[in-house]
Every structure is written in C-alpha cells, then in structure tokens.
C-alpha cells in the first residue's frame, strides 16, 4: 500500500484529509520531521490558515528544505489550498512573505469585491476545473466535467503559463486552480471535501507514477 506523508504543521485540516486519503486507498502518516519524510512514497501538504504561519512552521521544523529535497528527488507532491499557495515564490497575504519557490510567481488577493455583482470574498462553494490542454494530466483528468469545492480569498498567479494546469473562473476573474510541473501538483480546491470527484482525484494521486 502506498504511504502518504501528510505534513502536519499544526493548523491544517488534518482530520478530513487523512480520512479522505485513507478512503482513497492509501496509508497515511502524519509527518512532523524531515527524517520521517524520507520514509514516505508521496507527500501531501494540506492547507487551512495563513501563509506566513505555515511557512514559519515549515522553516522552524526544517520541513521546507526536506520537502524541496524530496520534490527534487522526484517524489509525487500534492499541495492543497494553502499547501498549493506556499509552492509560489511569495505571498501578499497580510504582508509580504517568501514561499517554497517551486513555482515562479506570487500569491495575490482576488480583485476588489463587488457585492452588487454577486462577487463575494471568500470564493466559497462548488466551481469548475477547466483543464484545457492538460485534459490528460494523470491526476487532474479524473476531474473532467466535475465541480469541486473551493474556499479561498487569495489566488496563485504563476509567471509562466506552462505552470497553470487548470483554470477556474469566479465573477469575471479567471484564476489558476491547479498548478505544477513534473511530479508537483498544487490545487486550490479541496479534494477531501469534493465528494466522489475529490476521492477519485486523490486515488489518481496515490496511483501516480512519474
């Protein structure tokens, strides 16, 4: 059975992600140290909370370097929501903070809210995953034609369009809902909260052979 190392930085929604990954067919280990990460087959970085706090904990535990090393070594990595956003170079959430710098670009807020147009922040609810040219991505292809659950106020803005694997549109604002390259995948939505569609995606991640 594939063992997924779920990074525990003390603020993520560990419970939901753990149960969903188990349901999708993997063994889940909560990882707190760089050493533990070496034993894993897959890495998942879940996300709830603030960018700054997440990066601070990862750095304090030495997990930032360990994650980068594992990604370099070719291990499949999935970042969810905030776990996707920390893949970027930097974030403008509550200041300016450096990320893991796996994907060039920044995390930025949605443009101003427009309540009169029904454009509210956070972007919360079920919305699309538009795959475009990446319809055959081994993990994301499971989401073709499905809606998934989003909750976020900030978006990833990669410098290079090749790092955008899927897009979603909120109000009239299109944004990257999946980013990555090679063995790295980050998704803005919550597969662990997206019912069967989300479980199917997690299963594909567990089965992902690079």
């Amino acid at each position, binding site marked *: 059975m594939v063992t997924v190392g779920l990074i525990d930085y003390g603020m993520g*929604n560990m*419970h*939901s992600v753990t*149960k*969903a990954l188990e*349901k999708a067919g993997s063994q889940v280990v909560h990882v707190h140290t760089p050493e533990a990460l070496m034993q894993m087959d897959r890495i998942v970085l879940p996300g*709830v*909370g*603030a960018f700054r706090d997440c990066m601070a904990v990862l750095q304090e535990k030495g997990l930032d370097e360990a994650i980068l090393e594992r990604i370099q070594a070719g291990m499949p990595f999935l970042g969810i929501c905030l776990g996707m956003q920390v893949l970027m170079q930097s974030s403008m959430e509550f200041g300016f903070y450096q990320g893991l710098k796996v994907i060039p670009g920044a995390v930025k807020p949605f443009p101003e*809210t427009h*309540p*009169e147009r*029904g454009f*509210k*922040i*956070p*972007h*919360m*609810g*079920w*919305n*699309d995953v538009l795959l475009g040219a990446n319809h055959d991505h081994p993990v994301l292809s499971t989401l073709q034609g499905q*809606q998934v*659950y989003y*909750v*976020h*106020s900030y978006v990833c803005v990669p410098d290079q369009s090749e790092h955008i694997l899927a897009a979603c*549109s*909120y109000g009239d604002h299109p944004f990257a809902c999946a980013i990555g390259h090679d063995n790295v995948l980050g998704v803005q939505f919550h597969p*662990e*909260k*997206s*019912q*069967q569609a*989300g*479980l199917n995606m997690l299963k594909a991640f567990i089965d992902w052979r690079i």
Partner: protein
Amino acid sequence: MPLSKRIIPCLDIAHGRVVKGVQFVDIIDAGDPVEAAIRYDQQGADELCFLDIRATHENRDTLYHVVSDVAENVFMPLTVGGGIKELSDIENLLHAGADKVSINTAAIFNPQLVKDAALRFGSSTIVVAIDAKRVADHWECFTHGGRKETGLNAVDWAKKMADDGAGEILLTSMDADGTKEGYDLALTATVAETISANVIASGGVGTLQHLADGLLLGKADAVLAASIFHFNEHTIAEAKAYLAKQGICVRQK
C-alpha cells in the same frame, strides 16, 4: 458553468441523534446522524449543516463524536452549530472534523468572539447565525429560538458580523420558520445586498419553488432547508433538477 448555488440540508441534533420537531416541541427521534449524512451525500447535497438544539456543556463530547463519525463517512463541507461560546469550542469542533462552525447567541453576548475566531481560524470557517423577526418597519435579532428580543437591527448586525470577519451569515426568519410559506425574501435580499459575506437563506421552505425564490429573489448564495428533505417530500436531486430548469446554476452529481 460559474460558481454553483448551494443546497444545504440541515439536521437538528439532540443527545447525538437526529430529531424532528416543530418549534422545539413534540420532538421525536429521527435516526442516526451518520445514516442521514450518507443519504444526503448520495443525493448530491452540497454541504451539511448540523445544529445541536440541546447543546449543553455536559453533552459536548456526544456532539464531537457525531461530528467525527459523520466526517469519516462523507466528504463534503460540514457546518456545525449549537452552544458555541468560546474559541476552544470552535477548535474542538474543527478538530473533530467540522469545516465551519455556526455561532449564534454568543456572537451577540460576546461581540469580540467573531473577530477573534475569524483571525484565528479564518473567515471561511466562521458562520454567524442570525434569527431575525420583523418588528414594525425593520427586522430585529432574537435569541433563544426567537423568544428573546435583543434590540439589534438584524441588517446592521449582519453587516457588523461580516465586517468582523464572518464568512457567511446563516439568516433565519423567525416569522417564516415553520410556516412552509417560503423564505422572508425581503429580509434575505436586503441582507444579501448589504453585506460582502455569503448569505444562506433559512426558514420557511415548503416547496421547491421556495428554494428558487430564495436564490433568485432573495439573492442568497445558498439555501438551507430541513423538513422538505427530512420527511422525504423531495430529494436533493429533485430540488437541483427543479432549480436547473429555472436557469439556476447548481452542481449536478
């Protein structure tokens, strides 16, 4: 397709069981919360809302067990309310597997709570429930199931709660609740147009058209209903098919 409007079945919980009742009287046992959650999951509900109507300090552990059991069996957003008084209550519910918590009375008696909770857990985690009743030419907030007046203007209060960081307002009309004559559309639309947070319409649903009205005329982001789904008058799937025919964007399973 754009962002879908959400259909949220609401389950009243007492002592770890689903209960059905009218206006808090004649409450009868209506089964196991996990079974109910699985049934709604299969029907394509977009979220679930659990309200502990008998929340007391002594039975908190029972509620945490229910939340934990449900979260292990269904993989969709789960809002839990009832008896939340302090940050540690929120933390415990989130830890048990809730995604959002609904704060009602405590938000009124401790206005700092919502601010602190939004900062600590994020706006998207914090739902403020408002029970509003028409008084003369406006609406006022009530507590204790609509029995106690607070003197707070409901629309102003909704705005303040959104400004303090509530991600959603669960807006129940005490006038409409239990009537099966539809949401208070004027109340819903007034709040939805005033605040930048999401609005969940609640109270009064008797037909599928009422759900459509809440979204189209009430301008709500989501609609909550209990009895029409509970008593198997309609399934969520029927509701979605009905709304889709009226051009409302809903997620089809």
